[in-house]
């Protein structure tokens, strides 16, 4: 499998902070993967995300995107076109006063021909389900709709990877569900590598792989099952586990023999059913 993003021994510090925000992070994302990055506030996960498309460059170590080094200024726009980024607050990402103009923004910057822009933004808006709002003003949309417009603006660039920095943190449950569904569709159907930074364990549980960060370091990596079955470790990093693992964990503390690896609701229900049946 081809490596999409590779960070090797990455160190980075902000000038106004004594302690380095990233302390020797190693991270690899292969093409087509869906990775969730977990960690408590201030663990450096947003800082790490900003290294993936050269918004920040490492103090030490190296980050490469499809073998292009992020410190190479000549490849800057290639890298940013390959790795798109979506942030937490949809309001602060939308530039234009009309949805379709905003989706076209990146393509206009890249100097794409107008007819081609039209084709690609229509496609991007279809994929993210915002086509019906294309003539609306962004401030008339809900948070979830705005966030999907922001994702469409990134998808229009046809990136190989999108990095989402807590995209659902400011949304209501309905908006969250739709944004997450959009992200999963992009990953499963269009093969776009997804790196999702989140505080929601149920979102992380849907990823192929979870990377847990703490104090500027990657402390744990593995499939959702591997991570969430270690309930005590996860809790010690001031994170939560999905409710499904939680219930199995609490029950097994009481002496019942249940596995915390059942993290999907179906698996958990089946396990409880089997257990109660004896």
């Amino acid at each position, binding site marked *: 499998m081809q490596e999409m993003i590779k960070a090797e021994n990455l160190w980075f510090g902000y000038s106004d902070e004594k302690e380095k925000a990233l302390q020797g992070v190693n991270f690899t994302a292969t093409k087509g993967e869906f990775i969730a990055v977990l960690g408590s506030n201030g663990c450096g996960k947003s800082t790490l995300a900003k290294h993936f498309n050269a918004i920040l460059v490492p103090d030490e170590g190296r980050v490469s995107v499809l073998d292009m080094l992020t410190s190479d200024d000549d490849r800057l726009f290639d890298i*940013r076109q390959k790795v798109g*980024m979506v942030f937490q607050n949809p309001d*602060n990402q939308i530039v234009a*006063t009309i949805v379709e*103009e905003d989706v076209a923004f990146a*393509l206009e*910057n*890249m100097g794409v021909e107008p007819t081609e822009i039209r084709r690609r933004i229509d496609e991007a808006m279809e994929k993210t389900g915002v086509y019906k709002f294309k003539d609306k003003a962004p*401030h008339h949309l809900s948070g979830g709709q705005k966030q999907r417009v922001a994702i469409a603006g990134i998808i229009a660039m046809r990136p190989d990877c999108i990095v989402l920095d807590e995209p659902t943190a400011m949304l209501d449950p309905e908006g969250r569900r739709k944004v997450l569904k959009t992200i999963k569709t992009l990953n499963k159907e269009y093969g776009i590598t997804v790196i999702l930074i989140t505080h929601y364990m149920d979102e992380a549980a849907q990823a192929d792989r979870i990377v847990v960060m703490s104090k500027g370091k990657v402390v744990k990596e593995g499939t959702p099952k591997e991570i969430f079955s270690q309930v005590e470790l996860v809790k010690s990093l001031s994170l939560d586990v999905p409710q499904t693992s939680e219930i199995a964990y609490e029950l097994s503390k009481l002496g019942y023999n249940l596995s915390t690896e059942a993290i999907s609701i179906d698996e958990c229900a089946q396990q409880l059913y089997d257990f109660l049946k004896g």
Partner: protein
Amino acid sequence: MLKDITIGQHFPGNSPIHRLDPRIKLIVTVAYVVFLFLSTNAVGLALCIAAIPALYGIAKIPVKLLKKSLKPILPIILFTVVLNLFFITGDGAPLLQIWKIKIYMEGIMFCIVMVIRIICLISGTSLLTYTTSPIELTDGLERLMAPLNVVKFPVHEMAMMMTIALRFIPTLVEETDKIISAQKSRGAMLDSGSFTDRVKALVPILIPLFISAFRRADELATAMECRCYHGGKGRTRLKQLKITSNDIMCSVVCIVCFAVIFATRFFFTPLI
């Protein structure tokens, strides 16, 4: 309360005026203002006035809106009237003299002309914003001002700033409303007290507003960089402006109208 503020309000429609190329609308509006101030005789002014209801009719913009847009400039009109009435001196004897204030015929004429000009000016320019979406307007401006690039004037940057400003007006208005509510809930007295008290009460609203605006600006800049923004160089546009036969026809009509208005100068005696 703040939701009522609308800057550059736009009323979507499909009239010939709505469909007109923004560049032509901009040029015509500027030309209209120039000719408005060039016409000093009754016929020329009458033509300028007549153009307003005619254009509003074609654009199907209700006259009610016009009244709304004229209301806030009423003080300015009054101020101009008073100033001109009392300070313009004529050749003949004054019409009226109260104490040291003398009112001349010329003063009255000048007042009337000025009021007509101001009203036409506001009506004409409002029609531009009513019939042109902000994005078209900035687009038109960017293209009209493109020659200024030669003298290193940052045309694209200006247009981008305008777009972003327009985009963030509703967002910041909403935010201001929220901050006001938050401060009120903590006991801020915004609607009572003396004038100075009220001005002082604005400080705890403006400071959070500014801080959040700067934070937004910072995030927006990062988001724009992520989408490969690097200034106006090599940029293409989704919407291309094209001059259609409709545009050419309108331009010809406007040129004829302006020529007629200008010609009246030579046939009628000026009022002022």
